[in-house]
């Protein structure tokens, strides 16, 4: 399984490429991307420099356009043309209407379907295959067993999963508005808070590390192609996450049993847990 890492600076790109990242992805300020907008690049030249760096190391660079905003469609088309010319290899898309707009405008950049398009079944994949996707990022809340027909699709579409053991929301990413707007005064990650009910305390369900490691194991065994480290705003946390992901992927390459992987993987996660706490930022958003 190869690795895709979200970045926000040239230094981050260099860090991950030197440590073996196969692909990078980023946001571009003129185009709507899912959160972490502060970490989006502002100029084509910045992105072009990273694309060049990635290509010299045999890696690729993608750009995310995974929010929907009518007002920016013209800017998106213009930006994608410039970014393609600057060497960006693919675009991560969500809005089916934008696929059509890119067709009409003759933008030929390779297309990756965002997890935010919610491909939970092979018919959704088939539909977006008709719109020209070459890869799909699976939503977090689908198991490898459920995704079997997507992973083994007849169209040659590659599959990508998030680094599930550390990047797994209790609510469906893209369909959760606890982090903004509706309760403007509520801190991020309300999902992790305790609520009171007449029958006692309530916490939104969370999967334990063993289950999440098991999911990663199942996806690896099922043949998912890429592991994605999200574009969080916290670079040190992403550094630890990438290191942890590499350790777990190395273990998986040795084809351990599921039980052995979840046990040893759990040890790795516990060993690195302190580092996450050191670098965690309360209220941080992913993207």
């Amino acid at each position: 399984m190869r690795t895709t890492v979200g970045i926000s600076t040239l230094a981050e790109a260099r860090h991950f490429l030197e440590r073996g990242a196969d692909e990078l992805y980023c946001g571009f300020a003129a185009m709507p991307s899912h959160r972490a907008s502060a970490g989006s690049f502002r100029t084509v030249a910045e992105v072009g420099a990273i694309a060049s760096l990635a290509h010299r190391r045999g890696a690729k660079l993608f750009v995310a356009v995974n929010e929907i905003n009518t007002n920016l469609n013209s800017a998106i088309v213009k930006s994608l043309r410039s970014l393609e010319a600057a060497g960006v290899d693919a675009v991560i898309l969500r809005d089916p209407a934008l696929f059509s707009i890119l067709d009409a405008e003759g933008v030929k950049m390779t297309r990756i379907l965002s997890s935010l398009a919610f491909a939970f079944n092979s018919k959704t994949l088939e539909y977006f295959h008709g719109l020209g996707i070459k890869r799909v990022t699976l939503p977090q809340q689908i198991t490898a067993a459920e995704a079997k027909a997507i992973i083994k699709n007849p169209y040659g579409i590659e599959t990508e999963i998030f680094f599930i053991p550390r990047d797994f929301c209790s609510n469906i990413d893209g369909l959760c508005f606890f982090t903004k707007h509706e309760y403007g005064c509520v801190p991020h990650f309300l999902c992790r808070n305790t609520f009171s009910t007449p029958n006692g305390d309530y916490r939104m369900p969370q999967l334990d590390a063993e289950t999440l490691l098991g999911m990663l194991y199942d996806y690896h065994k099922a043949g998912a192609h890429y592991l994605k480290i999200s574009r969080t705003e916290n670079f040190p946390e992403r550094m630890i996450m990438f290191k942890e992901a590499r350790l777990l992927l190395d273990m998986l390459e040795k084809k351990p049993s599921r039980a052995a992987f979840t046990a040893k993987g759990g040890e790795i996660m516990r060993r690195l847990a302190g580092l996450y706490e050191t670098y965690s930022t309360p209220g941080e958003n992913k993207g």
Partner: protein
Amino acid sequence: MEKALSLTPGQAAKASSSSLKRFDAVYIGSETCQNLLASRADVDALAAKFKGTIVLSTALLDEAALESALSLAGHAARKFGYDRIEVAVNDYGFLSELKREHKGRMKVSAGRLMMLNILGVWRQIDTPYLTYLSENFGVAALEADNPFYLYKRGPESPFAVHFHTPLRLLATTRYCAYSDKFPACGRLCRDRQLKLKNTQLKGGFIVSFNNGYYMREKPFSHPLVTRTVHTPADGKSS
């Protein structure tokens, strides 16, 4: 203005014929939990005691649930006719298959999860997105529960809006709220609504129901709203 009621299959089974009389349409199923998709028997039983429009509420669907939803829609259309059946859709694969199987005859609306797609960061109705759904899938109506979709809109839109109250969806999950597991279902929810309080929730409280978390929403009127959809919600445990 049409009046509609939104029920889970369990709630629909308990509803009396007389209690449904004042509604023009009844939604059956769930937009947030694929495991609460109505069965053929659920729809047949509802149709026997309610003579108006039946709307099949559907969620994001895995392979098995998609097959069940397609089978249900086909059954309902054959047995009760396209005039009487609508489907609220939240899954592109399902939308695509409905169009293919029913050749555009099935009345479909873009469900609330599809609408959340465009609420994202920008809080506006996105015309190309909806136009795309209309032109490619025959979507003519939108299921909405958030007034922000409509604040900036005049009455010229080609889309009818079905406005849901009093629960506005804030988040959805595929977990079972009662077992920490997904997507296996033992119907542990039993149509319960949990009223969740937290000291940091200055808006009051949220309600956990059908794999969704909701805040309370007031009734809302707008020229585009052609149907109000009521969900029984007392926000209490039961």
